[in-house]
């Protein structure tokens, strides 16, 4: 049944759940990369930039455009930590858990952040404001512990500074 339906429209059921606009956006991205399979990771980055995550329906759509199997497209999607299947919170806070930051107390900073935000790593606050994630090295090891918020790097982050930074991004968003 499902096979017949897909053949009829040329679309995978997951694709149909996306609206025309979304499909056009995805197509424009793959076309910009000339539907080249080696650009798959760049394509995923751009889809995620456009949607905030990679919608389920994007996978079969991209697979067909690049002439790769859906299994390959999914395999790449699941391999890389960066790509998400669900939207993140409005702000993404990444805490470095690697050795240099460990030497400067990132274990207790991580515990503080979890307790303060009331969430674990990989989770989003119930108001949808903050997603907390682990990261392994931000290249700021002379100014450990390091945190990245919405792509911006911060160094020497203690609990007080963490609070100030989080309050700051929330305020920026509100204003």
């Amino acid at each position, binding site marked *: 049944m499902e096979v017949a339906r897909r053949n009829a429209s040329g679309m995978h059921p997951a694709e149909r759940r996306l609206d025309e606009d979304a499909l056009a956006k995805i197509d424009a991205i793959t076309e910009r990369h000339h539907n080249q399979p080696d650009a798959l*990771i760049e394509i995923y980055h751009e889809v995620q930039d456009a949607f905030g995550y990679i919608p389920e329906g994007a996978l079969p759509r991209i697979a067909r455009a690049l002439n790769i199997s859906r299994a390959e497209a999914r395999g790449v999607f699941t391999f*890389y930590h960066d790509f998400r299947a669900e939207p993140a919170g409005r702000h993404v806070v990444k805490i470095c858990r690697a050795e240099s930051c460990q030497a400067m107390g990132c274990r207790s900073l991580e515990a503080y952040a979890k307790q303060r935000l009331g969430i674990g790593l990989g989770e989003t606050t119930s108001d949808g404001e903050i997603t907390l994630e682990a990261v*392994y*090295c*931000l*290249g*700021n*090891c*002379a100014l450990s512990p390091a945190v990245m918020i919405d792509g911006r790097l911060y160094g020497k982050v203690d609990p007080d500074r963490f609070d100030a930074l989080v309050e700051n991004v929330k305020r920026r968003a509100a204003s």
Partner: protein
Amino acid sequence: MAARLYIPGDSAACSVGADEVAAAIAAEAAARGISLTIVRNGSRGMFFLEPLVEIATPEGRIAYGPVTPADVKGLFDAGFLEGGPHPLGHGLTEEIPYLKNQERLTFARCGVIDPLSLDDFIAHGGYAGLQKALTLAPADVVAEVTASGLRGRGGAGFPTGIKWKTVLDAVSDQKYVCCNADEGDSGTFADRMLMEGDPYALIEGMTIAGMATGATKGFIYIRSEYPDAIRVMKQAIAMAEASGWLGGDIQGSGRSFDLAVRTGAGAYICGEETAMLESLEGRRGTVRPKPPIPALEGLFGKPTVINNVLSFAAVPTILERGAKFYADFGTGRSRGTLPFQLAGNIKRGGLVEKAFGVTLAELVYDFGGGTASGRPARAVQMGGPLGAYLPVSLFTLQQDYETFAENSAMVGHGGLVLFDDSVDMLEQARFAMEFCAIESCGKCTPCRIGSTRGVEVIDRIAAGIDRERNLNVLADLCETMTDGSLCAMGGLTPMPVMSALRHFPEDFEPRQTLDAAE
């Protein structure tokens, strides 16, 4: 004439407020009716002084730091624009001992020039190496690199010239040059600093590699955790193309070389060269068995030069000033300089480029000033998450590939993470296994399964369960991972684990006993 200031745009400097300081200085100058030019340079690598503000004076640049926006008014009052005295003042930047006592070849321009100004780059010796390479036959360029003794700065230490010769001698319709800028090791930031602070140096080194081997296309694989480096490199490539330093006919030489940036997606394993190739081809970053070596069958199956950022960036100096000049630095079979990175619990963290032969103690104490916490140092992890933990008694070791290998350790990418006496070495050993389990590509069993088992075994040792037997299991497991893994991820994870056990056995005593004793 308007005063000229340098305030780093480097992401680490900005992580402690360089943008805010630049804005505060611009605002204060406007309020006082003073006109000034602010150049956003790279970092000098003295991160303990960031944000570092430098003023150009006829005598040289005068440094102030670390500056906060609250200091700005006082700096103006003290006449800092004329180099006036102030508690944050350090005098001439070049005379600060931390910088003066270095031997900067690869990082000579970083923090000095405007990173994206080609004029600045060329005025400071940029492209002299490529100009020289364009006058030489490819084999002569390779011979020069070989004679310099340069070895892979990414960590493996393979002779760069031999790699290049293999690619040069390979017959193919297409060859590639790939730069591994997936700097995922904790304690390292030199690649990021160079890409943000002197991006044309990397472009020049890669272009020389192209000229030397007959490769006409290059890729720089940069980790997604480095958004600023990605932005700067892309801008630099576009500007080099527009000025005829990249593209179809480089400076009228009739030779061509194209370059593009590819962004990683948060996978540590993609710093392994064959996993990086898979990722560049748009696939899961799983490791490829070797042989075939990438120099013969690399990107898209074609002969490929793969080097780290620092290896490529070392090459222009070698071409410009000759192999002998470069090889005169260093010791034994470790020639030239290595940009060491002082990180972790260290008072003066930053980048220290020194000739091989410098000791750990000189780096940790003379440059680094000991721990940031003021407590006694206990251990250094040298060479990233796959490097050994070394006790203070081994701080006498001199930095060269062979000396470290003889001590079951490695120099790696030159990153050094200092820990004070509050560190729990069992916890560090456990983390090494945990990290391997998180980041393993899953291709080979010793790494994929061994790392998870490693965490469990260490937990049992900590709990005092069958201690002797589990210590044996851990040693056995580490041996299997070392001998049986496809790549350095699983193959070297035992290094931090076993070094922690060897040098800090007291931390592997059962935890209950410790609690009971307290």
